[in-house]
């Protein structure tokens, strides 16, 4: 079943030297699965995620042949319609909890705020759901975290609290933009386990944006590889090692590996033709 259809998505920012297109004709569909988008900085992967949610920062402009979420055309949705979808049926987890949580609100009231905007329930009901959600992201002492301010939490805890906030409304689509890059490797795996279970249990669609090939190939079902605003290759995560595009191959090869190491490391020779 198709949850999200993106056809020929373009994101443009005006600059002094004329418009600069950072996403150039991205097309994909998403079902209830885990889709990875990988690429290096500046490849347009985050802007793709933001454009879907209507979060392209002004003065950026988006255009597409089709952008629909569960039958709703997102291209001509009003601001109010977008607002009711965003945080409700589709939400986004950002990279760094330090910058994405409100520093002067407790975690509990931030999670309850999400529920206030989407659906009607009593305060005690909201609190119960918030606590249950904090438990679901494996926070050991949810009552304490509920009352805590962001600065009182570690990075891993903050990231889990943010995931709880995004998932408490039970969205159908979650866009996670580098949700684990600010975390230590061992915590990273725990956070991925939580996301994995939620996708499986709730039948959510997940777009996982990352620069980490190793992580994406082991976590997602399908992978889009982006370069200079375009999808250069789309393949099953399990078949990443058989990638055909020289950019994907180069990205995989230039990582140092624990076993069978090569010296010097192969470097990526960028071909001007890839960006055309």
């Amino acid at each position, binding site marked *: 079943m198709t949850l999200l259809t993106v056809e020929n998505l373009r994101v443009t920012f005006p600059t002094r030297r004329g418009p600069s297109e950072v996403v150039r004709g991205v097309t994909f569909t998403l079902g209830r699965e885990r889709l990875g988008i990988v690429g*290096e*900085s500046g490849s347009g992967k985050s802007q793709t995620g933001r454009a879907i949610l209507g979060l392209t920062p002004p003065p950026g402009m988006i255009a597409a042949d089709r952008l629909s979420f569960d039958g709703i055309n997102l291209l001509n949705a009003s601001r109010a319609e977008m607002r009711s979808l965003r945080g409700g049926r589709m939400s986004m987890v950002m990279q760094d909890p330090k910058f994405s949580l409100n520093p002067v609100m407790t975690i509990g009231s931030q999670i309850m705020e999400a529920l206030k905007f989407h659906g009607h329930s009593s305060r005690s009901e909201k609190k119960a759901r918030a606590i249950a959600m904090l438990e679901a992201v494996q926070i050991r002492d949810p009552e304490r975290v509920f009352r805590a301010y962001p600065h009182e939490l570690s*990075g891993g805890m903050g990231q889990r609290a943010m995931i709880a906030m995004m998932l408490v409304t039970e969205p159908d689509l979650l866009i996670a933009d580098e949700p684990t890059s600010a975390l*230590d*490797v*061992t*915590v*990273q*795996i725990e956070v*991925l*386990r939580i996301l*994995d*279970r939620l996708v499986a249990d709730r039948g959510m669609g997940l777009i996982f944006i990352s*620069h980490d*090939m*190793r*992580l994406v*190939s*082991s*976590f997602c079902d399908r992978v889009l590889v982006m370069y200079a605003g375009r999808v250069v290759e789309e393949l099953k995560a399990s078949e990443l090692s058989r990638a055909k595009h020289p950019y994907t191959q*180069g*990205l995989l090869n*230039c*990582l*140092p*590996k*624990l*076993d069978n*190491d090569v*010296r*010097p*490391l*192969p*470097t*990526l020779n960028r071909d001007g033709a890839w960006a055309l």
Partner: protein
Amino acid sequence: MIDIRDLHVTFDGGVRAVRGVSFAVARGESYGIVGESGSGKSTVLRAICGLAPTSAGHLLIDGKELTSPRSPDFYRRVQMVFQDPYASLHPRHTVDRVLSEPLAIHGFTDHETRIERALTEVGLGPSFRFRYPHQLSGGQRQRVAVARALILEPQVLLLDEPTSALDASIQAEVLNLLDRLRTERGLTYVMVSHDLAVVAHMCDRLLVMQHGQAVEELTRDALRAHQATTPYTQQLLAASEGYKPAPVQ
């Protein structure tokens, strides 16, 4: 060459960042320190450099105890490359100024030739000499940071996560550069990283740290063969292989 014995670092306010770490690095060796954030791995490097207060223990280089503050001679021999090339270069200084400062401090007179040579050695070339950091990419900035550290011709480079702010393809280039420079000049490296694969690529031996303490010391071959003896290192090794679904309970 470097001998660290029972190093303790306690910051004002009583935070004990490093609690009794000892290791020794031979001349020409490349030594890695691995750990997660807050493990004290960077603090060890900063303590060697004199940027963090040493509350107990001994730091020796070539058998001689380091003086506090460090002597100018120390900085001729030991230099550091920092993690974030976006933060460690002065935004309003040109590459030329960044590179001439250490030369002026240490009383060198042949700035011209040394700067051009340093830039050529890190693969940038003299044309980059009068650029500002914002006119450089992340990888180019880190090359400038390496050139700045190397311009005094030190024997030891302390590398604090030199590639963690860089894209994978640029990381490969910078690691190759560091590897080549070490072979050519017989440098000694102490490199801090959270990435086991990077350390395995760059270092002959490594120390795993957790909560300010040394967990275990391993050789590169032992790491490759997954012969970690402590549960923590095994956990790190497993995590570095990527995501695996939780075992069904």
